[in-house]
């Protein structure tokens, strides 16, 4: 795939989501791109539509015991446990360097209570350089006995409207795929005020070391990501598109431009590249180049491609 040199944004590649103008539809997924700066030796951050930073919580978090990752067929499980530096440290130490790039910065946030979510969102709104907040609702609600916000439509809706009320920033809600009907979740968070919806987060999985008869991960289960899950992710984006009024951001196993185009054609206005960043730290920029090449070759535009799947 030919690389293009850094140049002015191609208007046919641009997209506006929740009032934010992205130079291209390719972002990096939360938790797979650190705080962005770690990638400067390997890629040009200015080539990215957006960077979604590692999930931020009110206080710094230690994360889970180790082992935290294990490879699986065409994928990997992670149980990082949302280790992060905390929202204040991020704003003070990471954001100033990051906002120098011509790419949109999206802060992914999570909490164990609704109040946590609200407070993190508030502090981010007060800072400069963050374009939007992505809410990770795949977290256990400690007050509700650990049920996961992201699999209960009414709990999810509560988080979204609380965050919406605490922040002037556009709110992207990131959905968990571990549900019977993704459409129910889409409707719930949309009604609660989400400006855009991103999906999918990881599928819950586990791997056992059969010689030791123990789970490989210290936390037993972890989140499955990578190309293995792509067919499930594309299906969910397509289903979400049937009911969604707000723009969708698709992800799950995108390794190259062809994969990203599946999501766009299924209905996503933009995509996020996750696990692929580990395999090739320049992946997301290459995906953007490949989409541009496709758009040129097919004499089309991103706008015309979104949700353009023909059936029958």
């Amino acid at each position, binding site marked *: 795939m030919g690389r293009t040199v850094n140049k002015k944004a191609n208007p046919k590649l641009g997209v506006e989501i929740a009032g934010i103008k992205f130079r291209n539809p390719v972002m990096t997924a939360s938790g797979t791109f650190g705080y962005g700066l770690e990638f400067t030796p390997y890629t040009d951050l200015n080539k990215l539509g957006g960077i979604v930073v590692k999930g931020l919580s009110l206080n710094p978090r230690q994360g889970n015991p180790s082992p*935290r*990752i294990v490879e699986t067929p065409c994928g*990997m499980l992670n149980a990082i446990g949302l280790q992060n530096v905390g929202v204040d440290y991020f704003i003070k130490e990471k954001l100033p360097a990051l906002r120098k790039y011509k790419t949109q910065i999206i802060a992914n946030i999570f909490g164990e209570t609704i109040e946590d979510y609200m407070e993190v969102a508030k502090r981010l709104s007060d800072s400069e350089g963050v374009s939007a907040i992505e809410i990770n609702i795949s977290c256990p609600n400690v007050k509700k006995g650990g049920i996961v916000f992201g699999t209960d439509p009414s709990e999810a809706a509560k988080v979204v409207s609380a965050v919406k009320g605490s922040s002037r920033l556009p709110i992207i809600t990131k959905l968990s795929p571990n549900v019977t009907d993704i459409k129910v979740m889409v409707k719930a968070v949309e009604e609660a005020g989400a400006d855009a919806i991103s999906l999918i987060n990881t599928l819950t999985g586990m791997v056992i070391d059969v010689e030791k008869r123990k789970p490989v991960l210290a936390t037993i289960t972890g989140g499955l990501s990578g190309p293995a899950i792509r067919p499930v992710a594309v299906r969910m984006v397509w289903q979400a598109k049937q009911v969604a009024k707000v723009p969708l951001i698709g992800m799950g196993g995108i390794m190259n431009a062809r994969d990203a185009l599946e999501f766009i054609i299924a209905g996503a206005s933009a995509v996020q590249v996750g696990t692929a960043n*580990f*395999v*090739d730290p320049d992946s997301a920029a290459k995906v953007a180049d490949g989409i541009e090449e496709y758009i040129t070759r097919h004499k089309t535009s991103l706008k015309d491609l979104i949700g353009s799947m023909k059936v029958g």
Partner: protein
Amino acid sequence: MESAAVKILYNKEVAPKYFKLGLSWKTPPIAPGHFVMLRVSDGLDPLLRRPFGIYNVLGSKGKGTFKGNGIELVYQVVGKGTQILANKAAGETINLLGPLGNGFPHPDGSKKIIMIAGGMGIVPLHMLAKSTEGAVLLYGARDKKVASMAKDFKDTKCKVKIATEDGSVGKKGLVTELLKTELKSDSVVYACGPVGMLKQASIISQAAGVKCYVSLERSMACGIGVCLGCAVKAKTHNEKENKNYRMVCSEGPVFDSEEIDWDAL
């Protein structure tokens, strides 16, 4: 630090399941203890890169850090990734990310250097041996064939003492037994090998009031400190970032052994 497609110069079996892999690469400066991540397949399975220590920088006579026109790795075939690697031939290209991590703190010359290696742990210590003088390497190997790798230390100014599991060369038994006899109060220890050995080396050194640096291995996804997958628990709390965990890839792989919570490993 770069991501590069490099050419395989050679890939030869030096002992059963042990391979030396030469890669043509105009290297950035490399310090003993640095490693690289290789993408063993262009396909999707195995998906993740595999980490390997650097055994030699080719065409370089540096000290401390090395710059050359190639590197040599030594790897053992243990699973599907290393099996695929073993099938590659000279002339093929492979994608490399590196050099990664922090090397061993360069010895200041005031202490007597003891290197202790178990199995593949010999890899980063070979680089260290090349940049020091008067050191001793204690090398624990499975058997005679693996122990034969010690002959590579002839071009270093370093004495080698061997322990093999089967007693076929050197002392029969664990290499940490050698450490017990070798250790003096003015020693400094550099260790690389299986966790059990590292823990023992750490206990022995600490008991003798001697600094011990260990190079750790951990399953890795990114190699550059972003996935947070390769965490090990530290005894000490990092105040600045308020964290107990250390990333082996970006904060290690070399750590002061006192920093590590060995019981959590």
